[in-house]
């Protein structure tokens, strides 16, 4: 894991929590939307809070796509675990929602669970080999120097890609 990849995961976390909070605030201003009056959804997008929330969720989407390109789905989702804590803090202090002790415990348990899972490898799927090949191909053609063990030529990304080869090195356990 490189600093850049941690930044991407942080982006997934923060943008999702901030976007959801903004949406919630906007939707509370608008009130309940009836299934029989769907035009309310279009009006909802015109609310500034909802609009900013959508922009933040677009930023989340870009970070999320980036993360999914180099890590498992079951790794990327746990990486957003701190978002639950962030969301609870925003809900309590910015939206003034009541959060009971049981809900706090639930949030802690969820964060613990997803933090626990994040200690494993980032990429385990069968697509790892396929991905390495797809990354190798352009370079092989361009430079004429194929290198299966070091597809990135020893740059900062190489530890992650070499881990997909099955070295089993711990990814982020020490960080959580």
């Amino acid at each position, binding site marked *: 894991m490189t600093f850049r990849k941690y930044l991407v995961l942080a982006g997934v976390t923060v943008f999702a929590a901030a976007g*959801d909070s903004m*949406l*919630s605030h906007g*939707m*509370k201003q*608008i*009130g*309940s*939307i009836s*299934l029989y009056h769907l035009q309310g*959804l279009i009006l909802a997008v015109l609310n500034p809070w909802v609009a900013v929330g959508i922009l933040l*969720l677009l930023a989340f989407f870009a970070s*999320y*796509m*980036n993360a*999914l*390109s*180099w890590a*498992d*789905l*079951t790794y*990327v*989702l*746990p990486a*957003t675990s701190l*978002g*639950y804590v962030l*969301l*609870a803090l925003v809900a*309590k202090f910015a939206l003034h*929602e009541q*959060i009971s002790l*049981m*809900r706090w415990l*639930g*949030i*802690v*348990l*969820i*964060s*613990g*669970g*997803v933090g*626990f*899972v994040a*200690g*494993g*490898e980032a990429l385990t*799927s*069968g*697509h790892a080999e*396929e*991905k390495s090949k*797809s*990354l190798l191909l*352009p*370079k092989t053609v361009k430079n004429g120097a194929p290198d299966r063990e070091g597809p*990135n030529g020893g740059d900062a*990304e190489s530890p992650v*890609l070499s881990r997909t080869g099955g070295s089993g090195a711990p990814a982020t356990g020490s960080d959580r």
Partner: protein
Amino acid sequence: MRHVYTWGGILVVVFFSVVGDVLMARAMKRVGDVHELWRRAGLWTVVGRILSTPSFFFGVGGMAAAFFSLLFALSWGDVSLVAPAAASLTFIGNAFAAKMFLHEKVDRRRWIAALLVAGGVALLAG
């Protein structure tokens, strides 16, 4: 009745989220490491490769459906219940779906985490 609406909305969000996430994950694995590809071949190659992956569009469709159902659910319930509950149940659904459809190695560590998350969701609902 409000709880029925809230939890019904949450389940709909979860279903579409899992479908969207799995398809998006599949698409992005086919694209490859975006940063690496961008540096090597340029932004337009990245965009072109993403746009030529059909599961990307199906994934976006699933996520869009999840987004609009989330809008409904958020208007019916508190954000501190709806967002974590939907995301956590999505996490469990994704663990099953990722194992079945993406062939990820969902090991004991990840299953234990799924149970912890399920417990957390039960507490959130209490």
